[in-house]
């Protein structure tokens, strides 16, 4: 940014330079932000509240009431929708997909950042753009392709890429790679190039430069991306809905649809199910909030 002229004249950042806050304006501001914040939390709080009340009580007293506290909705929802199984499915998909995405993306990012070739920009564009395409635009050929590619029976009982964890993991990796390549290559370009010169003097191979020099320095970016990717792949709904068939194999986010069919008339159960599904992401949100925000703002693309 060409702000050099302005910067020179601006007063140094002393507390005195700050405007004194106008009291009434501040009060209005806090009132406004407070109202918005509570309004924003409300749907989630409402779901938690509803999930903790029995259907019989709310059916007779209405939802705008208090009482009928119970924990049974969670037990029933867990049992009926077989959340245990679906959470495991999500785990089988999310963990390998995130690890593979970070590994492959960091490889490409390393090459882009380490060597300057004419093709680098094209390569970066190819990866980044892939992440932004609407998934539905690829659905038809991909769906056909997955139903044609055989897998050995020990890999998937469907014996096809379709309706297998492998297929789902691959699609997620292919889609998420672009975002991670973009973020990581920018991060790696900012590393001082002298590091590699020193490593080369020591006779380190390209692989060792990647694995032992670059990767350890990228830990903050990798942590942020891992947080973000876990959330996204866990939340992924579309591919699992269209590329899986066996209900038992659905990850938890897409198995939500079954929940509705079964519990259509019992919103208390629906809310308990929703809270259960939200818990992993909420835990990530509260424990790793910093990583999450950093990951998003590092890349700033993505939906």
């Amino acid at each position: 940014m060409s702000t050099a002229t302005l910067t020179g004249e601006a007063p140094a950042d002393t507390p005195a330079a700050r405007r004194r806050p106008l009291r009434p304006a501040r009060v209005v501001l806090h009132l406004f932000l407070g109202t918005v914040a509570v309004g924003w939390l409300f749907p989630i709080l409402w779901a938690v509240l509803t999930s903790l009340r029995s259907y019989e009580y709310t059916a007779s007293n209405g939802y705008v009431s208090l009482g009928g506290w119970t924990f049974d909705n969670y037990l029933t929802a867990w049992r009926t929708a077989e959340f245990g199984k679906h959470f495991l499915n999500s785990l089988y998909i999310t963990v390998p997909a995130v690890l593979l995405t970070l590994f492959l993306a960091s490889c490409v990012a390393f090459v882009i950042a380490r060597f300057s070739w004419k093709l680098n920009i094209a390569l970066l564009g190819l990866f980044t753009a892939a992440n932004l395409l609407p998934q539905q635009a690829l659905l038809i050929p991909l769906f056909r392709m997955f139903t044609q590619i055989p897998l050995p029976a020990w890999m998937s009982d469907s014996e096809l890429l379709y309706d297998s964890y492998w297929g789902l993991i691959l699609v997620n990796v292919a889609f998420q790679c672009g975002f991670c390549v973009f973020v990581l290559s920018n991060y790696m370009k900012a590393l001082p190039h002298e590091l590699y010169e020193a490593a080369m003097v020591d006779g380190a191979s390209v692989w060792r430069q990647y694995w032992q020099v670059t990767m350890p320095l990228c830990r903050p970016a990798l942590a942020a991306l891992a947080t973000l990717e876990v959330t996204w792949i866990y939340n992924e709904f579309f591919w699992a809905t269209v590329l899986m068939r066996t209900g038992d194999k659905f990850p938890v986010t897409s198995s939500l649809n079954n929940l509705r069919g079964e519990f259509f008339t019992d919103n208390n159960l629906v809310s308990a199910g929703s809270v259960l599904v939200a818990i992993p992401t909420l835990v990530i949100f509260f424990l790793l909030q910093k990583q999450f925000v950093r990951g998003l703002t590092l890349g700033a693309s993505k939906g």
Partner: protein
Amino acid sequence: MSDLPLIQADRAVPPPAATTTTRGRGRRLRLLSRTDRVVITLMVLVPLLLVVGLVWLPAAATVLLSGTDWDGIGSLGEIDWVGLRNYDDVVNIYPPFVPAVQNNLLWLAALFVVATPFGMFLAVLLDKELRGSRFYQTALYLPVVLSLALIGFVWQLIYSRDQGLLNAVLGGQTDWYGDPHVNIWAVLVAAGWRHVGYIMLLYLAGLKGVDPSLREAAAVDGSSEISTFFRVVFPVMRPINIIVLVVTVIESLRAFDLVWVVNKGRNGLELLSALVTQNVVGEASRIGFGSALATIMLVVSLVFITLYLFTVMREDRR
């Protein structure tokens, strides 16, 4: 600013500094051993094959298939080329098409006119030094970690006809998710709820990256806070403004999960993405026809993706 993150937000973890231009990296390539060259090739080739094979080739195949009459059953050899007939059918004899385009545009308009500016506005407010700012921020972007599918269920508790909060409070009998006159608005509120937090987050990070001395200089010149924002801060944030614009467009084009969990994108909730999906996994699989719909999405998204790439790559080179 530029270089590392598009939005240089978190100063807590600055990237190791110093990016002077990299001189003569290419020349050193010749010094690489054979093993190194093999390793480099693999490092690029494996991910590249995956992305080309699972993203770009299917995208190209979609465009090709949109010009054929393939029903998905016969062998590829029997495919006949029909030119633009599928597009003609989509536009002229497919009733859900027009509502879908309208809904996608409405989605875009709602996010662009209401949710995005509101998110930016909140970011500007939260950028001040403010007590409790952390709490406000956390509350606002909490919905961002939830999947849109889940959000559909969370809002069902409010919209449901018999058990929903909204009808309980208003005393009405509206089926907010079911009634084709209102359900798109109901869904948009839920989508906007998430979008506001997302934009707030992106924009706040951008604002933190703005050189504070700019604002101080403007204040010294006697510029009011509002005019400082519009005349100084907003123009400086041009790259982030473009990113926010692109994110908004892409989000409204990709909108899918929310309407799919509500009613699979029918009855007032038609969206292009849902129509494509219905044509593939639904009862009637009309490949050429669905591909024409998908190609339309693809073309629109590519326009904005290109805009996005130009923006971020230019930032990158500076």
